[in-house]
């Protein structure tokens, strides 16, 4: 099969000498050439920030290249908008799905092209169209269900069907496995194989080498906006690929001393949270974090992690339940009191909450301590001391920036995260809440941050780590909880020997531990419930 494709070698797409310079001066793509053959799965491999997504956004008409040529089916084309791209037969499945949660699968797929029956939409026909489209490619979906009621893996299928129904021949998948459990990933790969067997072409953006090995025919590796090379996957080892991607050998194993556990620092007691739309997002979550340990929380995104972190850090008030810090129940918990009590927080949405983009690195690293000495005295700032302090952090955390007075928006994603981490790790905190601390940043920076987390733990800090990256969780955590639909469904005191597949089963709700196994980690027991009613 593979041979046949590479022998024919008819290219469906060529991008030549593509340049993209963003308005802040960042070169996302420089001199990029890429050629994709008809009927192959072409992996676009590179670290976060290497320019993969930008390149694909250019192809899909979301961004316009500064210069360069695009040839589709042998003809030079100008792709002014996604509309144009779709009309040409290019489809894209974004990292963040673009679906309407309150509409059904069929409605989402056919949005804007619904079959008409008089003035109303012919629902029966719609269901049929979508069902058929799915079956044709081995992508069965519950067409009558609402998007909000189906799993992430299903939603992704819906996105793929959406592109197929619109006549896509070339389908771009932007890090499709980032949100999937190991089981769902297997399903996705099966579907992709069927797609190419039926003559479609797939571009697969990723930074995970094992996936490339499993699914792709050829790869193009990007590094810092440049193409490092294109190759047949079968000719490459994972080590070779990683060297191309990172430019050096990466040593990924983190040395960890056994945890020396101290007193309980953070205690979450029977936390409930009901969202505005009456959905119960957290249902009696309890756990505690002790000094000198890292507690990892696993779970498919959207199972209550976001709310849990926001409640602990005082950004959100729980519907019910308590947070205790140092065995003291926090009555008026807000970001200020949380920080005062010795908590620091690496937020998952760093652009929204982690930094102020227009402000300088200096202004960003002192945001929680600007009022303290030596940063200010009597309400007047001490610019020289702030600069000196910031320069220290830039060195210590290896932030790549030429001046401490540069505005943060000029930095790359990994370096922005280092700014956040530098601030939160130097706050003198006893508890660190690290929410997706390495999401979307390059391998070097991720590795650095994980090591810092372990180091903090060795210093006796209690760390709560929420991560969608199971490899990271297993590597860094001392204990792991699994959150499913706002409940703790599994708890592992021992991470040794635990596999991603096992975690995946609990994350998908296929398995759950019994009340006894969970000990104090489940929702209320019967007696508790009585107590509450009284």
């Amino acid at each position, binding site marked *: 099969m593979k041979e046949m494709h590479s022998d024919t070698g008819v290219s469906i797409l060529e991008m030549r*000498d593509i*340049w993209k*310079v963003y*308005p*802040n*001066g*960042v*070169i996302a793509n*420089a*001199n990029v050439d890429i050629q994709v053959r008809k009927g192959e799965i072409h992996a676009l491999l590179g670290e976060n920030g290497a320019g993969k997504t930008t390149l694909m956004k250019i192809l899909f008409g979301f961004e316009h290249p*500064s*210069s360069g040529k695009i040839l589709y089916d042998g003809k030079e084309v100008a792709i002014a908008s996604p509309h144009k791209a779709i009309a040409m037969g290019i489809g894209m499945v974004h990292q963040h799905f673009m679906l309407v949660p309150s509409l059904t699968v069929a409605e989402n797929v056919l949005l804007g092209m619904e079959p008409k029956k008089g003035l109303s939409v012919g629902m029966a026909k719609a269901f049929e169209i979508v069902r058929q489209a799915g079956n044709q490619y081995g992508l069965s979906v519950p067409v009558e269900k609402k998007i909000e009621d189906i799993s992430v893996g299903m939603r992704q299928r819906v996105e793929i069907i959406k592109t197929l129904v619109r006549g896509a021949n070339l389908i771009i998948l932007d890090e499709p496995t980032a949100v999937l459990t190991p089981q769902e990933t297997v399903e996705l790969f099966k579907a992709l194989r069927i797609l190419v067997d039926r003559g479609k072409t797939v571009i697969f953006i990723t930074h995970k080498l094992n996936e490339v090995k499993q699914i792709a025919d050829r790869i193009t590796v990007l590094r810092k906006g*440049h193409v490092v090379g294109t190759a047949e996957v079968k000719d490459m080892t994972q080590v070779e690929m990683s060297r191309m991607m990172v430019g050096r050998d990466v040593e990924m194993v983190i040395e960890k001393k056994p945890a020396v556990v101290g007193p309980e620092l953070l205690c979450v007691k029977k936390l409930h949270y009901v969202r505005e739309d009456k959905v119960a997002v957290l249902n009696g979550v309890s756990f505690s974090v002790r000094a000198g340990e890292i507690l990892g929380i696993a779970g498919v995104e959207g199972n209550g992690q976001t709310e849990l972190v926001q409640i602990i*850090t005082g*950004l959100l008030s729980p519907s019910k339940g308590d947070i205790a810090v140092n065995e003291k129940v926090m009555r008026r918990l807000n*970001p*200020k009191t*949380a*920080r*005062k009590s010795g908590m620091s*927080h690496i*937020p998952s949405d760093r652009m*929204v*909450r*982690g*930094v*102020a*983009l*227009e*402000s300088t690195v200096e*202004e960003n690293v002192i*945001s*929680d301590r*600007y*009022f303290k000495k030596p940063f*200010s005295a009597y*309400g*007047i*700032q001490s*610019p020289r001391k702030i600069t000196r302090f910031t320069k220290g952090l830039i060195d210590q955390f290896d932030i790549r920036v*030429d001046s401490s007075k540069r505005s943060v928006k*000029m930095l790359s994603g990994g370096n922005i995260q280092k700014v956040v981490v530098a601030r939160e790790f130097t706050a003198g905190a006893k508890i660190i809440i690290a929410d997706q601390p390495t999401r979307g940043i390059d391998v070097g920076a991720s590795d650095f941050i994980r090591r810092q987390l372990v180091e903090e733990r060795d210093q006796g800090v209690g760390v709560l780590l929420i991560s969608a990256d199971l490899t990271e969780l297993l590597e860094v955590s001392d204990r792991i909880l699994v959150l499913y639909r706002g409940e703790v469904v599994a708890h592992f005191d021992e991470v040794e020997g635990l596999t991603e597949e096992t975690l995946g089963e609990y994350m998908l709700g296929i398995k759950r531990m019994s009340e006894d196994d969970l000990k104090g980690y489940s929702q209320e027991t019967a007696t508790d419930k009585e107590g509450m009613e009284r």
Partner: protein
Amino acid sequence: MKLKFRIDTFQLYRTGIAIGIALLLGYIIIFFSKIPSDAASLWEGVRAGFDNANEAFKWFLLGPIVRWRGNEMLFNERGAIQWLNESVPIIITGLAVSIVFSAKQFNIGAEGQLFMGAVAATFVAVHFPAIPVLHPIVVILTAMVTGALWAVVPALMKAKLKASELVSSLMMNYVALYMGLFLIKTFIRDTKAGSLVSLPFAATAQLPFINERYRLHIGIVIAVVSAVVIWWILRRTTWGYQVRLIGDNINFAQYSGIATQSVVFQVQVASGAVAGMAGTLEMIGYYDRFLWLFSPGYGWDGIIIATLARNNPLFVLVAALFFSYIRVGAKIMGRNTDIAPEIVSILQAAIILLVTAEAFLSGLKQRSIEKRARKVEEALTGREVK
């Protein structure tokens, strides 16, 4: 990727080009309106148009600082002083607005705040014991406190009821106008005067003069000092830091532990206090009684100026002086030619539109960024780049 690029220089060019285009526009309008309809030939008409437009622009651009005796150019003291005096209230309102804009909040209530400030100040200027030096200080403080209180209403409504400050501060302007006029009419009207004016101020309320002949008062000094002080507060104090951080990203400020709600409230009140003194300085400096029948419009000018100055208090100074210069120039042009000085409004509008239009010249900027980026790239890789 290191990129030493001064985006600020670009903003400077952009503003300069916007002003240039606006002036050109003004010139073209005057040119066409001044082609005599009874010209002997088209050529004659065009020449007359140019002559007239040149004459008008001479007054407009040089009038505020130059007067002519025959062909001799002399310093126009009266014009220059008028220029400085007229810039005082709009510097102050520009500062007031730039404070709230720094926190990305809105204040379109400056107009009402300065109006009420002036009304309250009038009572103090007329009735307060005539103690020299102290009297004008008390008058100004009264105006500031009143302006602040006037700003408290929308700020409170925003904090407690989540009412848009945009609407409420706008509404407060009308309340200020009619309530202010009512207060003046009822309690402090000079019945001997022909129109609706207040009783004359006590002589001790008068701000000291720098030049008594043309009534250059120390308002301009107060305005300049205010600009420097406000710049310092915003740039160098922890309070100013909070304000700017909120302006950049309020979610981040909150996450960092800053009491955002209370800072936002303080910002509105501080802005009201500054706005409060805008009209009062003019009133006790240049005039000697309350004589507004309408809202003077300085609050709106403040929004324009703060926008043009990109909320930097020091640039507010420059922008306000510029605006007052072209206004005085237009008035002088109006006196010496038959062109309506209102043409200056067209210029103002054109400048603001071009400066605030993000896309204006952004292609130029993007190209220069790309050029630099490629140069850096070439230096790094040693490869030739097209």
